[in-house]
């Protein structure tokens, strides 16, 4: 099973929802089509639904986000006002930023979810010593070699660590130091 995290973006004004993905699609369609009728057809929603949707945003913002020509040769044309364009741009930029963040391994590393250049060593828990907020775990990674890990008691509890448990030890390569003994002087 391929499990993937997703994010949903929406814009709010004073705690009230303005536009989400659907709203941004509607504004984009109006920008492209220059008509509310064509835009709603493109998205497969009714004209009335689209119109009400826009009205709700305008009520909340107390300003117009679309402008319609009332007559003449431009009759039926609907365009985004400057506010409408800014709203769409803000949504697009923000969701693009988050999409990029999801693709960025450094961001995953920051969450401790994926670490490039890591050492993963299988081992068996030998000792679990919990004292106050900290826990010291000793893990045998190859007889008689042990890795000592200092983690929070919460983590130890969450993992329900006990002697005999099979675990994987991870150490970021950037956290490993190299010690080279000076050759003895004769």
């Amino acid at each position: 099973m391929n499990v993937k995290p997703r994010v949903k973006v929406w814009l709010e004004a004073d705690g009230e929802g303005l536009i989400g993905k659907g709203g941004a699609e509607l504004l984009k369609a109006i920008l492209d089509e220059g008509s509310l009728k064509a835009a709603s057809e493109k998205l497969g929603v009714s004209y009335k639904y689209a119109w009400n949707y826009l009205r709700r945003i305008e009520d909340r913002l107390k300003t117009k986000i679309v402008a319609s020509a009332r007559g003449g040769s431009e009759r039926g044309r609907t365009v985004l006002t400057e506010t409408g364009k800014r709203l769409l741009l803000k949504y697009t930029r923000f969701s693009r930023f988050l999409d990029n963040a999801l693709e960025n391994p450094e961001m995953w590393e920051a969450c401790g979810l994926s670490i490039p250049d890591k050492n993963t060593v299988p081992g068996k828990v030998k000792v679990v010593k919990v004292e106050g907020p900290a826990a010291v775990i000793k893990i045998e990674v190859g007889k008689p070699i042990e890795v000592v890990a200092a983690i929070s008691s919460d983590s130890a509890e969450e993992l329900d660590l006990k002697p005999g448990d099979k675990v994987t030890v991870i150490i970021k390569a950037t956290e490993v130091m190299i010690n080279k003994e000076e050759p003895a002087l004769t």
Partner: protein
Amino acid sequence: MKISARNKFSGHVLRVEREGVLVKVLVAVERVDEVTALITCEAARELELKEGDDVEAVFKATEVIILKDGG
């Protein structure tokens, strides 16, 4: 010199690879396969690291992450 780090693995340098401003050092540790250390080029130069050198891979206990298998 004494060091507080709880984890010290003795081994020998298998390979030294340059990766931009960093150097990847692969240390063969008996019974633990190999351990990778990413250190700066400057550090590698100062230690005159080369294949076959006897070294220790050292890391603090607080830098260890534990994953429970099947959990």
